[in-house]
């Protein structure tokens, strides 16, 4: 009996590692024969699922070499607290600045929730429009990227982004922003923030493929984007988005 169990476990291990190894290999191989024209990326954020743990922020900083100081973010999480008298308090969830926790009594709170933020990868991106040298551009698969060997550091794109999604990298002195982890997604891997999210509040996917978690998300929920009146046409859409979120 014991032996059979062991054999079974060994078999599972061998099979799963072969499959996993194969998948990894395939993932690596995908960069070479990756065809950007076959993809168009987007993200869905199921606001209700976010628990504000900040794992996505940490993972993003580690993955993308974002400075650890609390002034540079490719993604961040906002906490909204709306009191019964209508007063709205918003905070950036950051493990390093927890000193100014507000003293709102629970009974005064009408509703409270978290909203993850990141570059909206606009389809009509103002940052790309204003870049004087074309260092910021939209890839064929729909991601907005900064070429840090061409960026002159004029910061016009930072001014033009309505979402505060860009910052000037203090070491490189060039503009920096979320790329949906372009180096990962072109290998078939999800962005770092999506991979670590414990509650699966972030759903990454290909807008071109119908049957996908993102497709399901878009089918099931009423969706909204941030600042739609600016006609930036974000490719990051939110479900259950509160009207107070800007």
């Amino acid at each position, binding site marked *: 009996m014991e032996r059979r169990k062991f054999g079974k476990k060994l078999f599972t291990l061998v099979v799963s590692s072969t499959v996993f190894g194969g998948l990894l290999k395939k993932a690596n191989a995908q960069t070479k024969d990756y065809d950007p024209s076959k993809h168009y990326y987007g993200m869905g954020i199921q606001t209700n699922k976010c628990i504000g743990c900040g794992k996505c922020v940490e993972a993003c900083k580690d993955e993308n070499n974002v400075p650890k100081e609390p002034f540079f973010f490719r993604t961040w999480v906002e906490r909204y607290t709306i009191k019964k008298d209508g007063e709205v308090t918003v905070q950036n969830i950051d493990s390093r600045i927890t000193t100014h926790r507000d003293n709102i009594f629970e009974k005064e709170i009408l509703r409270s929730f978290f909203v993850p933020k990141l570059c909206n990868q606009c389809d009509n991106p103002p940052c790309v429009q204003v870049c004087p040298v074309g260092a910021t551009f939209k890839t064929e698969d729909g991601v907005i990227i900064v070429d840090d060997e061409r960026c002159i550091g004029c910061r016009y794109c930072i001014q033009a982004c309505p979402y505060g999604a860009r910052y000037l990298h203090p070491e490189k002195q060039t503009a920096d922003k979320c790329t949906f982890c372009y180096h990962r997604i072109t290998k078939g891997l999800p962005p770092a923030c999506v991979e670590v999210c414990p509650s699966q509040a972030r759903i990454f996917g290909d807008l071109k493929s119908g049957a996908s978690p993102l497709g399901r998300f878009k089918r099931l929920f009423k969706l909204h984007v941030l600042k739609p009146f600016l006609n930036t046409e974000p490719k990051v859409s939110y479900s259950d988005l509160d009207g107070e979120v*800007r």
Partner: protein
Amino acid sequence: MIQPLHQTLYELLKQATGFIYPNEIEVHWGILVVVYPYLTGLVAGAFILASLVKVFNVKEVQSVYRLSLLTALAFLIIAPLPLLLHLGHPERSFEIFLNPNFTSAMAMFGFVYAWYLMVVLLLEIWFTYRKDIILWSKNERFMMRWIHKIISLFSTDVSEKSVIFDKKMVKVITIIGIPSAFLLHGYVGFIFGSIKANPWWSSVLMPIVFLFSAIVSGIALVILIYMIVTPSRRQEIDMACLDKMASFLFYAVIIDFSLELLDFIHRLYESEESIKILSDLVMNKLFISLGIIQVLLGMLLPLGVMVAIKFFRFDAELRKLLYFVSAILIQLGIFATRWNVVVGGQMFSKSFRGLTAYKMELTGFEGIFMALLLLVLPFIVLAILVKILPPWEPAPVSDLEAVSD
């Protein structure tokens, strides 16, 4: 370099009120970007004053025509410096000329600047001075002789026909020049006015407000330079000229003031989503620089003084003093205007929920000393230009006769 930045940002983080997007703590366009539109404004303004003289043939102001042109050139030469210094990678700045992105307002900088410098200012100055340079070079010593010969591009023709042609060309260039000057500074306004993400900037009036504030500052500057330089040359200030310039200044200030008032009332009346945070901005962060310096000291007070001069018959000495003080106040006010646009536009969060803070450094590229240096440099350039191309003494006619003999 990085450590002090982080220290500053930690300090600023404490000063921010309400909620700001976390990336908004760093104010990206600081004092240098304030200096840039201030300098180009002076260029456009000084040039437009010179053009008024030529196009409308205003005889009184004829004596400052050349001085205005040289002032415009001196400031134009320095104007790109603050931009260059504030770039993260100044060594890549030439990319703007080589690989311009045609949808970017900023990328047009290279073309607008080159057009204005090469086609308008240099050409107009060359045709204005050509005959004089040739005549000067006849009786000069080695150094100046060669400088003038090179500047005249080795032209030697001072015949009546060629002088008439020069005059014709100046007229043509002036006519091209006025819309070009409008373009130069209107375009700087467009850089800010076209940013839909920023409600403080995003306004169709922005280029026009920039333009008229430029005219105001340019005329005031030429008045100041004229009033300082003339006595230092032991010459009498021509009151007819000064009165006329002050009169132009008066009308320009009225138009500028009306436009800014219109912008203010329009925003208040429309009362869009951003109105609350913008009111906070004006009442807290910009109260002194906008309410007191820009509007009260820089606009209403000089306007009052100039109205008083028009109504009462002050004697020449008092008028001189009042013009001088008004022109200084106006410079201060226009600098504050640039500050309020550039820095003010970054003092509130695009979440409309909080205000940020700006700390100006003393030293370093983005410091006060650098800004002061950049404001002084154009005057040094102007001094050199005046040495090479004296704006007050057309070459004596006897020289002309001597050459033609």
